[in-house]
């Protein structure tokens, strides 16, 4: 019996590969969008303007306090009520972008705040304006602290992309869900789904560890 199901599973491999392509597409687009939003929001979150920091913390808290599934439902079901007709794939990318943007915002903000204040002082006293300070002094040093957790957040993003299968996006999880209706071997089907995600996420997690080791400032010994 298992042999028969395994054969059927192998026949449905192209279906899973289509799902894999969709997962990569959703994740990649949201990754780029989330990083852009997270970058600007993070810089704002670390700024001196108290009103900006407060406003952005409302955004961050709202996203971090609610489940991604609920955010996705709000976008997918409520935007049409407001007159915006949105299909599943754009809603998924939008939802994932907004969600990851808030976490990436926190990562950028803590990275910027981790740069020693003396650097900022030196930049100011050398006569650089705010944009130049950020571009030449603060951000290059902040990137050291930011890169490992940022890649870690990308891994979380790829895993969260499985949730968008609920609103009909045909990703790996949805492919598994549809397949298991025909091939009632949950362990085989979702074992395969797990293997697909494992192939993508496991190397990235080790990349994070490698980056963390590389980015640690080595002690200066005379």
């Amino acid at each position: 019996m298992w042999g028969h199901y395994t054969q059927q599973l192998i026949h449905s491999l192209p279906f899973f590969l289509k799902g894999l392509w969709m997962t990569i597409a959703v994740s990649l687009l949201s990754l780029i969008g989330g990083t852009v939003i997270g970058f600007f929001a993070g810089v704002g979150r670390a700024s001196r303007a108290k009103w900006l920091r407060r406003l952005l913390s409302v955004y961050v808290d709202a996203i971090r306090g609610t489940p991604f599934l609920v955010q996705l439902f709000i976008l997918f079901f409520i935007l049409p009520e407001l007159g915006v007709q949105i299909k599943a794939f754009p809603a998924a990318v939008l939802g994932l972008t907004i969600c990851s943007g808030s976490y990436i915002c926190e990562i950028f903000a803590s990275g910027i705040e981790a740069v020693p204040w003396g650097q900022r002082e030196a930049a100011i006293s050398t006569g650089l304006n705010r944009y130049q300070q950020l571009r030449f002094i603060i951000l290059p040093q902040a990137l050291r602290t930011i890169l490992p957790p940022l890649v870690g957040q990308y891994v979380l993003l790829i895993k969260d992309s499985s949730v968008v299968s609920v609103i009909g996006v045909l990703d790996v999880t949805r492919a598994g869900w549809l397949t298991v209706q025909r091939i009632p071997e949950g362990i085989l089907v979702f074992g395969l789904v797990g293997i697909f995600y494992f192939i993508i996420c496991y190397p990235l997690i080790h990349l994070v560890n490698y980056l963390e080791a590389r980015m640690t400032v080595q002690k200066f010994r005379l």
Partner: protein
Amino acid sequence: MLESFNFRVMFEYYPLFLKGFLSTGWISLVSLILSLLVGILACAGRLSRSRLFSTPAAAYIETIRSTPLLAQIYFFYFGLPSLGFLVPELQTGILALTLNSGAYMAEIVRAGMQSVSTGQIEAGTSSGLNYFQRLRFIILPQAIGVTIPPLLGQAIVLVKDSSLLSLISVMELTRTGQILTNERFMPAEGFFAVAALYLVLYFLLKSLSTWWQKRLIFRQAV
């Protein structure tokens, strides 16, 4: 849009919202406690010097971390019946949540144990305490204080992750929003109320964590 908000319907569905809210809290609490136990076991296995324990523990943690929670939930929901175990959805969901959270708990437990300085352990050894006495009188009292904030962070994650159980028809808060959407075509009222209730839980847990951290600093200062 707020003018057309049908508060009367929300009031009518108040018992359902309450049921979902309490159900989410209950599921999260049970999963938190169980996953702490799993995490302690996994951490002990991971740090063990014998490969018999460390390899399965490491495999468990890496597998959970590299696969999405939704795929794990579906794995148990569709997989357990094919093995012959007919487990109700609630228990299946708690099982999936516990196993998922346990892998992250292992890291939290490890960090907590390692926060106790080796000098303390050395003092314990030189005072003649055996392994279990050291654990009980020296390591655990100091480790617990440090572990509470990440534990509460994991509780927040569990509250949000429990929303995925609504997809295997477990009655909890997100399901309430889905019911309101399906029965009354009112996704706005449903999901905004649901989001607000999740934020209540979020701010509750967050202020608990802040209070504990302040208490910890006060005690350490004294």
